[in-house]
Structure formats: structure tokens, C-alpha cells
């Protein structure tokens, strides 16, 4: 399966990189800026594809983790930059709330990013109006970080709270029709969180909004 995904992406990434590299002549700054978005989003698409392919490896217990120390602030800035067009289009307010003096996180950066990106993308997608907020807290005593993505969106009914984490599932079929998506996002998030020694918590009120919280050890361990 991987070949079918990677062959077209190879052409997208390759031609984008060639254009950015000036192979067909210099581009104007606005052209370059847009192409850089094509580039960063293609790379992101690639990382999602890799993660989906990784599900099979997680299941098979053959999943490598790459732990490193990193700042969540930088990671969130990157995420909001990538999502900016989506946020603009959705006409949503966004807010990031990081407590000052937040310690760096030692974990798998790419996987943390993937999880938060999934949560943010969902929040934007399922919030017709209002606000999407990311709140980061460190809990020193329990040595955990809590990254909460809060929205004022459609919410998840109590009977659907487990279902939304299943593979290829959304709350119901009408949701898939209205909002699109493969229904894999949260399934991936949950697997990845658990690999990092953490979990995803969900609080929600139907029609009022949801809070999806990634809870992970501040210093992850190789298992």
C-alpha cells in the first residue's frame, strides 16, 4: 500500500522543491510564500500517511520512537502557522494559553505534533463559529503535561464518546457526510498517545463544545 501513497507524493514534493529551488526561474515573494505552504502541507500529508502506515506497525509492536527535548511553544507556533489558512477560512478565533516557565517536554516531537494537529484540525472542522483554544499545563507533582484543545463546536454526545476513537468512525454517518474526513484522526491520536505513555481525555457537551486533552509524561520513557 505504501507505494501507492508515496509515488504521487514524491512528484508533489519533488516538483515543489524544484520550483522553490529556482530550477524554472526565480519566483516572486508571494508565489514563493504560497509554494512554501504547498511544501509544508505536502510534508504534513506525508507524515500523516506515514502515521497511518505506522498503525500497522504499532499493532505489530514494531514502532520506533524518537525521543528528544523540545519546547511546546515552538511546536504550537508551527501548528498554528500550518493551520492559518484553515482558521481564516473557518473565521474562528484562536487562543493559545501557555503558563510562563513551562518546562520543555521530552517525548517524540513528531508524534506529539501529530496528535495536537489532529485535535486542532478536528476542533476547527467541528466548530461552525466561536473559538478554538489550546491550553498547556504542566503538573510537576505527577510529572505530566496536559495539552487541552477546547472548542465551542458541535460537541460529542455521551453515547458517542468511545466511538469517535475507533478506526474509520465518526459520531455517525451524517457527520461524515457533512464534515468529510476518513475518521482515522482520533484513532491514530489514541494509539500514539498510548505509545508515549499517555492518553486522550474527552469532556464534551452536545451543542456547546468539546475539550480533547492530551495527557503525557513530561519525560517520556522508552518502553
Amino acid at each position, binding site marked *: 500500500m505504501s*507505494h501507492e501513497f508515496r509515488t504521487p507524493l514524491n*512528484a508533489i514534493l519533488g516538483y515543489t522543491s524544484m520550483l522553490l*529551488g529556482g*530550477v524554472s526561474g526565480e519566483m516572486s515573494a508571494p508565489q514563493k510564500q504560497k509554494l512554501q505552504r504547498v511544501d509544508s502541507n505536502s510534508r504534513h500529508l506525508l507524515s500523516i500517511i506515514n502515521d497511518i502506515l505506522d498503525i500497522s506497525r504499532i499493532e505489530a509492536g514494531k514502532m520506533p520512537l524518537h525521543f528528544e527535548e523540545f519546547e511546546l511553544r515552538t511546536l504550537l507556533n508551527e501548528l498554528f502557522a500550518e493551520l492559518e489558512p484553515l482558521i481564516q477560512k473557518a473565521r474562528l478565533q484562536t487562543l493559545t494559553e501557555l503558563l510562563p516557565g513551562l518546562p520543555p517536554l521530552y517525548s517524540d516531537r513528531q508524534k506529539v505534533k501529530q496528535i495536537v494537529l489532529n485535535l486542532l484540525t478536528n476542533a476547527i472542522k467541528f466548530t461552525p463559529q466561536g473559538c478554538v483554544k489550546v491550553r498547556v499545563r504542566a503538573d510537576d507533582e505527577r510529572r505530566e503535561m496536559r495539552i487541552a484543545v477546547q472548542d465551542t463546536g458541535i460537541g460529542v454526545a455521551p453515547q458517542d464518546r468511545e466511538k469517535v476513537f475507533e478506526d474509520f468512525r465518526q459520531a455517525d454517518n451524517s457527520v461524515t457526510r457533512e464534515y468529510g474526513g476518513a475518521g482515522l484522526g482520533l484513532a491514530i491520536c489514541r494509539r500514539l498517545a498510548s505509545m508515549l505513555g499517555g492518553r486522550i481525555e474527552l469532556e464534551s457537551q452536545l451543542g456547546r463544545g468539546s475539550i480533547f486533552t492530551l495527557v503525557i509524561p513530561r519525560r517520556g520513557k522508552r518502553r
Partner: protein
Amino acid sequence: MSATETVSKKPLVLVVDDFADNREMYSEYLSFSGYEVIEARNGKEAIDAAQTRMPDIIIMDLSLPVMDGWEATRRLKADERTRRIPVVALTGHALAGHSKGAREAGCDSFLAKPCLPDQLVAEIKRMLETGKANIAKGKR
């Protein structure tokens, strides 16, 4: 043969890929980067091109119609005329098994797709340098 000749000339690269978009992309970038390029769309064409043009290096996609890249490499490496041409395997199957299979078939190095054009050029440079160094040391 051509070992000493090629030092002064533009190196000739044979790009083997059945998907035109990727093949032409690499060709264009390689030309841009100062290489001479010829193309083949499957393993059989690759063998013909290698025998008639004697490229300095071959970039070989592995999943190919008519004759796949593993078989083509095996034949190139079994042929006295073409066995010294380095073969860089390039594939979308980033699985450990594929790279092992590629090495067993005789590929000299292995790159996983997506592979950016400049990454490919870097690998070609590295392989050609290694080849020259081996020739200088009397290895073949």
C-alpha cells in the same frame, strides 16, 4: 574502458521509472545539476540502455512493469559489460525487506521515496566519488 574518460565529461545517469512524472522530474533536475541523462520506463529498457550507452550510474525504481528493478539489477550485475555500473535503488516501499532484497539483487545503495531531487543528486555525487576512490585504489 570509460573510467578515466568520464572524469572530464558530464557524468551520464540512467533514470529508470515507469511513472513519467517522477522520471521526468529527476531527469530535469539532474540536467539542471550538470548531468547527462537518459531514461528508461522498465527493466528491459534499462538493460538495453545500459548496454548501449554505458551510463556512469543507474537510478532504478524497483516496482516496474515488463521486468522489475530487482530482476534488471540482477541481470546487469551478472553481465560482464555492465556489472561495474553502480545501481541506486529508489522505491516507495520503505520496508526493511525491500532494501534487503535490493541489496541481494546487487543494488549498490538504496533510497526511499519520497526522495527530493537534491537528495538524489547528493547520493549520485557520493556514489560517483566512492567509485572514483575505489578505482584510484585499484579496486573494481
